[in-house]
C-alpha cells in the first residue's frame, strides 16, 4: 500500500511537491482543472461555491502529451511518482454528461486524451460521472477546535434544491451565454445509459493505452442534487458500474468519506467487499460525522469512521494501491490548508505502517 498526496494544478510548485514528500507521500494525484478561479467560492481551501458553481470552465484545449509529460518531469524531479489524474475538465466533456450535440466530437477528444495519459505513463484516470457535481455543500466550523469543514444540514437547502441552470455541468459554467433556464431533469436510468455509452467508447482505448478508469461516487451522495440524478449514492450502486463491463480497466476511485456519508449500509462491509474484488484503483480516505442529509467532514481521527479498522481491512485484502487524504479541515495557523493535510498525512502514515502485517507486534499477537 502506498501513501499519496493530491495537488491541484496551480499548486504544482516545487515547494508543494517537496511538501508532499515531507508528508511522507511517494505518489501524487493531480487535479488538472482549476476549480478555484472564483476566489469568493473558495472557503478554507476547498471550492464550495454558490448557485453558479465554482467558476467558468473555458479551457477547451485538450490535454496534450507534451503538457502531461512536462508535469510528469517536474513531479519526478521532486522524487514523486504521478499515479493518477483526478477529473476530466467539464469543458472537455459536458455534452457527454448532458447528451448534447457535441457528444461524439468530445468523445473523440477524450479518447485522444486517454492515449496521451497512457503515453505519459500515468496509470489511472479518476472521473466523476455527475451532472451537478460536487454541489450543495456548506462550510461550517464543525470540526475539532471549531475548524471549518464542508457538509450539509438537511437536504432542503436552496444550494441543493435549486435546479441547475443551462450552461452548467459538474458545478462549473461551460457556457456563460446559455439561456437563463433550468437544465431539464432526467431519470437515473438515463444517466446510467449515458455512462454505459461512455464506458463502451472509452474502455477499449483505456485498455490499449494502459490506463485504468476509476469512478468517484457522488459527493454529496443524495439521490438528486439540483434536480439532477446521481449515479453512485449507495454502496451497492458501485456494483452496477462493475456489471456494465468486466474489464480490469473499469474500476473505482474509492472515496471512503463519501461512502461513509451514504444513508444506508455498513462502511466496513463496503470496504471489505470492494477491496476483495480487486477493483479499486485508488482510495480517498477522510473522516466524517453523520450521514446525508446531516453530515460534516471532520479531522481524520474524530469522525464516525474507525480508520484503524479501515486499514486492517485493506491489509487483510492485500490492497496494494494508493491511499490519499482527499481533503481535510483547515487549521488555524500560517498555512491552514497545508497544516490540515499534513495532520491527516501523519495520522495515515502511522496507521498504514503500524497496521501492516509484521508492522507491529500487535498484528502478530492477533
Amino acid at each position, binding site marked *: 500500500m502506498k501513501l499519496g498526496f493530491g495537488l491541484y494544478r496551480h499548486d504544482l510548485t516545487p515547494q508543494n511537491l*517537496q*511538501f*508532499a*514528500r*515531507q*508528508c*511522507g507521500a511517494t505518489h501524487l494525484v493531480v487535479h488538472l482543472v482549476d476549480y478555484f478561479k472564483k476566489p469568493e467560492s473558495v472557503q478554507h481551501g476547498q471550492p464550495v461555491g454558490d448557485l453558479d458553481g465554482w467558476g467558468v470552465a473555458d479551457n477547451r484545449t485538450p490535454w496534450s502529451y507534451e503538457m502531461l509529460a512536462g508535469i510528469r518531469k517536474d513531479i519526478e524531479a521532486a522524487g514523486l511518482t504521478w499515479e493518477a489524474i483526478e477529473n476530466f475538465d467539464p469543458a472537455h466533456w459536458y455534452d457527454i454528461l448532458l447528451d448534447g450535440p457535441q457528444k461524439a466530437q468530445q468523445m473523440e477528444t477524450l479518447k485522444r486524451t486517454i492515449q496521451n495519459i497512457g503515453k505519459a505513463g500515468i496509470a489511472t484516470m479518476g472521473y466523476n460521472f455527475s451532472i451537478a457535481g460536487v454541489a450543495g455543500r456548506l462550510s461550517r466550523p464543525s*470540526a*475539532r*477546535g*471549531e*475548524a471549518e469543514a464542508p457538509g450539509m444540514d438537511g437536504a432542503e437547502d436552496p444550494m441543493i434544491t435549486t435546479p441547475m441552470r443551462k450552461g452548467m455541468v459538474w458545478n462549473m459554467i461551460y457556457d456563460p451565454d446559455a439561456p437563463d433556464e433550468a437544465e431539464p431533469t432526467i431519470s437515473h436510468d438515463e444517466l446510467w445509459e449515458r455512462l454505459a455509452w461512455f464506458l463502451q467508447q472509452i474502455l477499449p482505448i483505456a485498455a490499449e493505452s494502459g490506463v485504468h478508469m476509476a469512478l468517484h461516487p457522488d459527493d454529496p451522495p443524495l439521490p438528486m442534487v439540483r434536480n439532477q440524478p446521481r449515479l453512485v449514492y449507495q454502496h451497492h450502486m458501485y456494483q452496477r458500474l462493475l456489471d456494465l463491463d468486466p474489464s480490469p480497466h473499469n474500476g473505482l476511485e474509492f472515496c471512503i468519506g463519501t461512502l461513509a456519508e451514504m444513508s444506508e449500509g455498513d462502511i466496513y462491509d463496503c470496504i471489505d467487499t470492494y477491496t476483495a474484488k480487486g477493483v479499486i484503483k485508488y482510495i480517498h480516505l477522510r473522516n466524517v460525522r453523520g450521514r446525508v442529509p446531516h453530515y460534516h467532514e471532520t*479531522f*481524520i*481521527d*474524530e469522525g464516525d469512521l474507525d*480508520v*484503524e479498522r479501515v486499514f486492517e481491512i485493506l491489509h487483510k485484502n492485500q490492497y496494494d494501491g494508493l491511499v490519499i487524504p482527499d481533503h481535510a*479541515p483547515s*487549521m*488555524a*495557523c*500560517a*498555512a491552514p490548508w*497545508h*497544516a*490540515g493535510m*499534513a*495532520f*491527516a*498525512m*501523519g*495520522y*495515515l*502514515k*502511522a*496507521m498504514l*505502517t*503500524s*497496521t501492516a502485517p509484521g*508492522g*507491529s*507486534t*500487535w498484528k502478530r*499477537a*492477533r
Partner: protein
Amino acid sequence: MTSPSGIRIADRMSPRPTKQELEFFQQMGIDAASIWTSLEDSTYQYMVDTRTLLASHGIDLFNIGILDLHCDPTMVLGLDGFSQKVEQYKDYLRNLGRAGIGYTTYAHMANIKMLPYYQTAVGVTRGGIATREFDRELARELPLSHGRQYTADEIWATFTAFIREVMPVAEEAGVRIGLHPDDPPLPTLGGVARIFGHVDGYERALEIANSPNFGLCLCVGSWAEGGADMGRDVYDMIRHFGGQGKLFKIHFRNVDAPMPRFRETLVDDGYIDMYEVLKALQDAGFTGALLPDHVPGDGRNTAYTIGYMRAMRARVVAEAQVHAEQA
C-alpha cells in the same frame, strides 16, 4: 479529550498564546502544553493566569520553563551568582507548585545555547527541510566555550549542590523535576565536561537527588544521537526507568543515525522505531507528556508529527487492550 492510555500528547506553546495558536492546539487534539519563557514570567500570577487560559481551551499546562535558569552557565560552571540563581530557582518552584503546575524540566549543559556547540552545519532532511546537523569530528575543533577546561568532577559538584538545594523545595511545592540528557551526549564539548550522556549519569543523579520528585525528561532524539555509547538503548531506557516510575516527560523526536554525525529528521524518517518507543511507554504505564520537541520545518510539519503521534498512541492503546483481554 483524555486519552485512555494516560500518555498525554503535548507541544511547545508560546508564552502569550494568541487565539489562533490555542485553536491550532485544539484542532490538533493536543492534551498539554509546555511553555519556555524568561525570568520575568516566573511569577505566580503569570503562571496561574496562563494555566487558567489554557484550561479554558481544554489544554493542560504541563510545564513552564525559565530559560534563565535552565542550561545556565552560571549554574553549570558554578560562576559568581550561582547562589542567587539557585534562590531564584527555588522561588520559581514554589510559584509553579502554587499555580498547580506540577512539573519542570532541568538540564545541566553550559554551552548548548551557543550555536556552534549545538549544530555544526545546516543539513537537509526529507522534502528539502533545513535541519540541525552535528558532526562530532568538527566539534572537536571548536575552541573552549568558557575560557578553560571544566572537568566532570566540577560539573558533578555544581549539579550536586544545585539539586540538594532545590529538591526539598520541589517536594514541598509538589513539583517534579525531569532531568534532560545532554544534547549531544559527548563526554566533553568546548572544554566543558558533560555528565548526562550515559545511563550511569542518570543512575548517579537519581542517587544524589534521592527524591520521589526527581526523574527523567527522556529525549529520545538526544539518546539516539549517542547510539551504542549510552549504556542502554532508548527502548531499554524506557523499560528500565519507566518500570521505576521515573519517566516524567518524553521528547518524541528522531535522528538519521547515531554519531559521529547526525541530522534531525521528521518523526518517521529516522533510525529509531517510534512505534516501539510508544509501545514501551504504554507497557511501562507512562502517564506523562509526550512532546515532539523541535520538529524540522514549521507548523505544517508539527501538524504532521502530532497526527502521527495520535495514530501511534491509538495503536499501542488498542494493542494493550487486546493483550489485557487475552490475559
